[in-house]
């Protein structure tokens, strides 16, 4: 899957389903501190990623992911593995 497509899907569900402020979306945005994604939101992101990309996020793989850019990369690596 193209990186641009992944970005589009992720940004779309963050805005539409997690209701993140669209103005906060940027590569450098910190998931927790800038976008306000908390531990409960993360559970829902696991569900949404499974629906859109067909794989289950493993919490231990997410431990080093802090920015939105890193999150796109993580999904790209999993989807295109």
């Amino acid at each position, binding site marked *: 899957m193209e990186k641009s497509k992944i970005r589009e899907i992720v940004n779309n569900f963050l805005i539409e389903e997690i*209701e993140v402020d669209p103005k906060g979306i940027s590569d450098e945005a910190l998931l927790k501190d800038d976008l306000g994604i908390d531990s409960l*939101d993360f559970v829902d992101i696991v*569900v949404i990623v499974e629906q859109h990309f067909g794989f289950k996020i493993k919490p231990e793989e997410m431990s080093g992911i802090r920015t939105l850019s890193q999150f796109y990369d993580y999904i790209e690596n999993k989807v295109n593995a």
Partner: protein
Amino acid sequence: MRRVVITGIGIYSCIGKSIQEVSEALYHGKSGIGIDPARTLYGYRSPLTGILEPPQLKNVLTRRQRICLPEEGEYAYVATDDALKDAGISDEYLDKNEVGILYGNDSSSRAVIESHEICVEKKDTTLMGSGAIFQSMNSTVTMNLATIFRLKGINMTISAACSSGSHSIGLGTLLIRQGLQDMIICGGAQETNVLSMASFDGLGAFSIRIAEPHKASRPFDAGRDGLVPSGGAATLIIEEYEHAVKRGARIYAEVTGYGFSSNGVHISQPCEKGSALAMERALKDAGVNPAEVDYINAHATSTVIGDTYEAMAIDRIFGPYRTPVSSTKGMTGHECWMAGSSEIIYTLLMMRDSFIAPNLNFETPDEASAKLNIISSTIEKKMDICLSNSFGFGGTNSALILKKI
């Protein structure tokens, strides 16, 4: 003794979603009963139910707030928001004062069943999502509303089957009388989704008068064939009298009596003795004689056994006084966990507007109901003291007495 008054009401029901709508529906004897085709597809014996649509809360509540709210919680949110506004309680008041919540609820089926279905398919609990646990617990209404309205007082759910909503008001009254709280949000909520009433339907307790939905709920009528399930939510703001006066609140009525009892007999069948005991205790608590009661809002659900035992109990206490009786369930169906609180609102509106709403579809009395003064069409009547009954599975009984002040 500290006195307890009702200063705000809000309701989301099949006969109306505002106080005005509900008052008019009561006066005109409007039925809220209809057919839910999904019930037939699911395997219900009866598709009859109170008809109401969930409210739209997007852009009203945040995503986190919405995702934790089950159907009955959505109803309860709207009813409570309306009740707080009706009572003149602002966001600032809630932030600066201790307000409690005691709310009746006794099921939250959809999240439980859907979570199970996800896990069967996916074999992964995370994929149930973050809202499932908060939607599926019995205390879902109070945990959600206490968070949304930033409440800092007593915070718990009252689960007492079909008397949950009534006990919530009674127990709240006791806490305020004791001086432990000045203001409590009370009420009851009832889900209506297709998953919520299936096992109850399985008992064969529901009416199958499918061709005439508006005539299906017939409390006290000899031609009844079962109850009609219904739902929604009803909220009452109860408050210590001096506290209400001091802040200039409008007072609907005083809660002067609360009586409870447990039959200790049968899991689904009521009994005359237990029902009578709850009413006698409420009368004693209120310090009133049966002759002084202007109206009884009966629990009567449109089942032969339940209606009969209640009629016998009412006759035992009120027989000589020909006290007017009606069950508003002829219009609303049985609002179950919500009923004890919604019926206090119905009674308050009748007291306020000086009328008795009809016991819809009461056409032919049976031996027990013939002894009562059942009001089958609306009458104008000024009322100062009213009693409302609520009885539930497991033999839990509650009676409340309201007095106009």
